[in-house]
């Protein structure tokens, strides 16, 4: 049998990550109804054959709740990380090609956003949006673009010196056309990796802010809600309420990380021979 090399392992990880995450998202979406179903004949059951993660004090199936919560987290993560990375791409390019003033304004904005601790800024934005779903999405989108924007700015600054870009400039092609036609294709791999590596942060921050009570409303089975509810029952020894949903969250987030890293390895030109 052929030995599995680095690239094949990366493809494998990427595949596993994509399949698992899609499955969780779709499954969680489908069973969302039953996550809210209460049944007092089966309350406070520890994990067993029928209910893998046990049930809570209202007899709700914790497995279904966890998957639904994660599915929601993933969807919120996709939405906000998507918005945030497009923002990063746009501002990064803008800073690099529009001259000194624009550059210093955008760098200033990056410093500003990085200067306030993320959680605190999320609390502020969520407060500004009147809490709830919108606050979370806007908050996560507005706080996560900074490092990717920096990266893209640096990349574009380098690209500006490339021969083909300078030739295009001399030929009188406008800045926007150069950015669109000659730079964007070059930036795409980095953008994609940046986008995917942004998900884990987005999901974790969504969970954190919801946990603190600034995010999604308590009726929704979000992972942050599940964990903050479980806090009240910890002292009674209901360990499964907190343990399994959290483990599942960690697992999902690390899969995203693995997927992103694998993709980065695959896209890096130097890795062909590993």
């Amino acid at each position: 049998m052929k030995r599995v090399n680095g690239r094949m392992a990366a493809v494998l990880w990427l595949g596993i990550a994509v399949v698992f995450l899609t499955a969780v998202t779709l499954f969680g979406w489908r069973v969302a109804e039953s996550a809210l179903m209460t049944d007092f004949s089966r309350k406070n059951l520890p994990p067993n054959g029928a209910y893998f993660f046990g049930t809570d004090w209202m007899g709700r199936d914790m497995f279904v709740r966890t998957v639904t919560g994660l599915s929601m987290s993933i969807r919120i993560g996709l939405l906000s990380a998507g918005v945030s990375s497009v923002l990063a791409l746009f501002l990064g390019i803008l800073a690099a090609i529009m001259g000194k003033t624009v550059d210093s304004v955008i760098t200033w904005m990056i410093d500003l956003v990085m200067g306030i601790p993320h959680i605190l800024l999320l609390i502020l934005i969520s407060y500004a949006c009147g809490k709830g779903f919108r606050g979370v999405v806007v908050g996560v989108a507005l706080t996560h673009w900074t490092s990717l924007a920096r990266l893209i700015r640096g990349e574009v600054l380098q690209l500006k010196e490339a021969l083909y870009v300078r030739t295009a400039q001399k030929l009188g092609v406008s800045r926007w056309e150069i950015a669109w036609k000659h730079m964007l294709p070059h930036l795409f791999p980095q953008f994609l990796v940046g986008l995917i590596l942004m998900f884990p942060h987005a999901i974790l921050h969504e969970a954190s802010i919801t946990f603190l009570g600034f995010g999604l409303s308590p009726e929704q089975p979000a992972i942050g809600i599940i964990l903050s509810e479980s806090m009240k029952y910890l002292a009674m020894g209901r360990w499964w309420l907190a343990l399994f949903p959290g483990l599942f969250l960690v697992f999902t987030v690390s899969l995203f990380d693995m997927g992103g890293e694998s993709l980065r390895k695959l896209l890096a030109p130097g890795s062909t021979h590993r």
Partner: protein
Amino acid sequence: MKEHLIFTGKKVVRMALLLFCVSAAAFILVSVSPVDPLQANVGQAALGSMSREQIEKLQEYWGAESPPVERFFNWAKDFFRGDMGISLLYRQPVSKVIGEKLQNSLWLMMIAWLSSGLMGFLLGVLAGFREGSILDRIMKGYSLVMVSTPAFWLALVLLMVFAVWLKVLPVGLSVPIGMEAGSVTVLDRIRHAVLPAVTLSITGIANITLHTREKMIDIMESDYVLFARARGESNWSIVKNHALRNVLLPAITLQFASVSEIFGGSVLVEQIFSYPGLGQAAVTAGMGSDVPLLLGITVVSAAFVFGGNLMANFLYRVIDPRIRRGGAWG
């Protein structure tokens, strides 16, 4: 020397301007909020049973009157004089509330910051020194999992194990319940800070370990290390003379940048352990629409973050002779 002063001056001015912008941004955010402080704190039922005058009085107390720009400049002017306003929930000057809470938090955050930085750096160097060794694999696996672990869940798990199950450490608060302030010993304080500090350190280590390890691997593959080996230098002297300084620079950047993360982590961890620190105050202020307190905390924490960056910049110049001679500032 003159160069140093100019450098310092520029950085400090920039920091002050950034702080001003942070406070303005925070002020804009809280001003556009549709959250009605009266609804949030007094409640619909209580409002319904009040007379008009009472409601007006309350409105005045929670501040919903004059235009935002005017309010901002009034607030900024007072802030500059050291008067941060009165916290609406605690009914004390904001500066006093923050001072009290900061004492609790600072102690917690310093332990976490120092231990995670030192441990992370050490482990990163050890792991990167021999890529592929057992220690390296364990550290890599550990760090990768920890990067994905939310601090608040880890706090819950530790709480379950050590406070509920083993009953060796207290469940929360910074001092024992029902004890007079005078009779609280240092040992009590330490016992109450152990779990939160450990939680923060455990998650904080991961990032710095990963980066230090990567950098260390790069260095070990470099030509100058190969040459040093060929000269017959011992492992220790290679690490001491060739690797350490080079690894230290990125580690310092990360370590000082992590001030913001430690702060964020402490918000969550303090909430779980009901530790009466700055983070918990921030959450209380946000939930209860205590605008002056929220603004005060934002500015103070931003000052810490910028202060951290400033220190990192100075340390660079101490450690890296190339930067000290100038020229590297692009």
